[in-house]
């Protein structure tokens, strides 16, 4: 069975808690909080004013640049405030606050569950619709999807790779989405193939989801050019670069875009959103979130409108378990530990909520590096984490840069595997931030000289 070629680790997948739990809709909130940054790139610009009445699907904020995304209203009601807001990690930003009244949708949105198979739009119209719907990559990175569909001049997409890997432990939302909305995903794939002008699509699914592999295989059987590729279980297979390597055996060169290999990767949840936007005129206003953990009462997969306070989602799953030490937004490998839940809404970036018991929440004390080399074996980018950590700690930025720190994808394999519990990635992130700043400065200086 295929997988990526360098490094990787095997964490317990712990998907048994929420796997196969049917997608359950979360009730509407009284007040919705809509952050203006729910994607990578420039913040969206609010286009509504305080006091405005909005319907579900109406544009609230438009993309603030080329790499940015629209934000459409997930609820109907009155805008009460546009202003400062702080997320659960303490980062400041802007948000639109809406008092929810009823559930009134824009009339053009098709809310029936009927499948809409035919798509007669041309590629440009498809991409425009995706951009208008504010669709971003729902696998975690939140890169605006329409930007990915417009390769830079000279580059040509050859294959669409569909990410059904869900390699993060605990998370099951993509798995359940494939089981319940596989047909829509297949239609979405055909739409994207048309938009990209490619004849081939590969759906990569890890082998711990055998039912999803079989289900998607059955659905894809009669569809020309779409194949399902079962992949051997290994983290971080859902990483864009690792998945391209696993599916077509090509590696994105350092510093280059994935399109260099001829592949465009989109997550199954993103593709479901594409189907809804193009075929049903429904913008991206909700997503399936996994709420899970060893001690949570009702772990499951919840369909949540953006803006819904996560407190409300947690309540649906039975409330915060008593022995909770950490609450993680996302999966345990790359998700971020939240400080609190107040004023934190569901949004495009939040794929799940994971409650870790207190006993699993405290890092053991770091010991001396024993130079075992396990971090080097584990690094899926072929880097030397032990060395990058030490150099970052000593602020040797030139060396950090020379040792390819910018290739680091933040996957956490090094820390996961380190027997001495060293905070490798903490320091490497610091090195990456510093080198990134140095590179930007250098580029700005070079550009200034050119002028």
């Amino acid at each position, binding site marked *: 069975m295929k997988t990526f070629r*360098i490094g990787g680790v095997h964490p317990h997948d712990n998907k048994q808690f929420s796997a196969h739990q049917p997608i359950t809709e979360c009730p509407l909130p009284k007040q919705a909080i809509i952050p203006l940054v729910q994607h990578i790139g420039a913040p969206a610009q609010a286009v509504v004013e305080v006091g405005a009445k909005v319907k579900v699907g109406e544009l609230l904020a438009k993309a603030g640049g080329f790499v940015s995304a629209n934000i459409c209203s997930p609820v109907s009601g009155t805008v009460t405030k546009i202003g400062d807001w702080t997320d659960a990690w303490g980062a400041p930003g802007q948000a639109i606050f809406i008092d929810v009244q009823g559930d009134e949708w824009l009339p053009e949105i098709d809310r029936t569950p009927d499948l809409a198979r035919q798509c007669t739009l041309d590629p440009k119209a498809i991409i425009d619709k995706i951009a208008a719907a504010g669709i971003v990559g729902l696998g975690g990175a939140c890169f605006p999807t329409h930007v990915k569909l417009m390769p830079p001049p000279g580059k040509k997409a050859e294959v669409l790779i569909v990410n059904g890997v869900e390699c993060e*432990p605990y998370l099951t939302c993509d798995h359940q989405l494939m089981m319940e909305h596989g047909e829509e995903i297949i239609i979405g794939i055909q739409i994207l193939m048309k938009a990209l002008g490619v004849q081939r699509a590969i759906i990569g699914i890890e082998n711990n989801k055998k039912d999803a592999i079989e289900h998607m295989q059955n659905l894809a059987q009669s569809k020309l050019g779409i194949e399902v590729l079962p992949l051997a279980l290994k983290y971080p297979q859902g990483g864009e670069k690792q998945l391209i390597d696993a599916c077509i055996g090509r590696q994105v060169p350092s510093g280059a875009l994935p399109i260099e290999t001829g592949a465009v990767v989109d997550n199954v949840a993103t593709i479901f959103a594409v189907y809804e936007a193009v075929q049903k005129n429904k913008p991206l206003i909700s997503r399936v979130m996994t709420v899970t953990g060893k001690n949570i009462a009702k772990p499951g997969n919840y369909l949540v409108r953006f803006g819904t306070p996560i407190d409300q989602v947690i309540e649906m799953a039975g409330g915060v378990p008593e022995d909770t*030490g950490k609450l993680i937004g996302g999966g345990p490998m790359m998700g971020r530990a939240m400080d609190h839940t107040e004023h934190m809404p569901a949004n495009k970036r939040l794929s799940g909520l994971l409650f870790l018991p207190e006993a*699993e929440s405290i890092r053991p004390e770091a010991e001396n590096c024993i130079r075992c080399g396990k971090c080097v074996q584990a690094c899926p980018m*072929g880097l030397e984490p032990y060395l990058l950590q030490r150099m970052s700690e000593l602020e040797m930025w030139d060396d950090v840069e020379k040792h390819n720190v910018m290739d680091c994808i933040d996957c956490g394999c090094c820390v996961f595997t380190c*027997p001495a519990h060293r905070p490798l990635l903490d320091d490497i*992130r610091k090195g990456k931030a510093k080198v990134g700043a140095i590179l930007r400065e250098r580029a700005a200086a070079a550009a200034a000289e050119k002028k």
Partner: protein
Amino acid sequence: MSHFITSPAPHVHSGDSVRRNMLLVILALLPAYVVSVIEFGYGALITAAVSVLACVGTEWLVSRYILNEQKQTIGDLSAVLTGLLLAFNLPSTIDWWIVVIGAVFAIAVAKMTYGGLGQNLFNPALAGRVFLLIAYPAQMTTWPLAKGFETSYVDAETGATPLAFLKQAVKDGQLVADKLPAIKDAFLGAMGGSLGEVCALALILGGLFLICTRVITWHIPVSILATVALWAAVTGWAGLLPADLTTANYVAYSLCTGGIMLGAFFMATDYVTSPMTAWGKIIFGIGIGIIVMVIRTWGAYPEGMSFAILIMNACVPLLNKLRPTRFGEKRK
């Protein structure tokens, strides 16, 4: 407002620890140790006990009274492992106070002066052994015959190890067949030698256990064994062996005697003193294989594994400049 614990990702861990790795290596050494006790009797028990106690005691005393450390590190079991490995590299009949001197040198000089576990350049157990070899050459090269509990601890019947005969065979073309143990005995450990080096079978089993449990990788042991075997085979094909020693037998004796197995699976693979990358490990292993055969063929000592590993230990910082294959790098 309830506050949760926060820390950067990742939030789960493999469960691996320094202690677990040390414990698994100690476990992997046990089969060979059982054979040693069967072959050498009380001497094997006394030497190992003294060595382990002296190593752990030295680490405790040094960090408590010389380095004034608040936290003791003996719980990571690395000192226990060093003690066991040092004992494995000593003749079972050696005086207990010599063992203590070796242990003190291994821990106090070769490990703690550099800053403790993870910082040392040379394998502590081998540094201790080589110190003793230079300080007490007679005692260190007097090997007991393998006679189980009939071997008395201090005045055992002694004899030369097979390696001394092999050197004579290659260097002077002497007939040696009747002086060497049967290949089966060399493989199973019924021959003279250091406490833990004699049973190739038990050491291979322990080594495979370490590879299967991912404590070590195959690179170092395989490259050492392959280099030694190839060198021995070439010696045979070149017609340098006496009439009564076939090439196949010379290869087998070269692999099963003189601590090659112990060194390849347990000493050269020491995390701290071996390279970090796969290619580094392979070159490290080939280097050890070449140096050990050069010493065995032309050197003054019959046995060269300790020196070979220590010399290659010194090359590790250089070998660590070899980068792993980066993702997306052009492959040849």
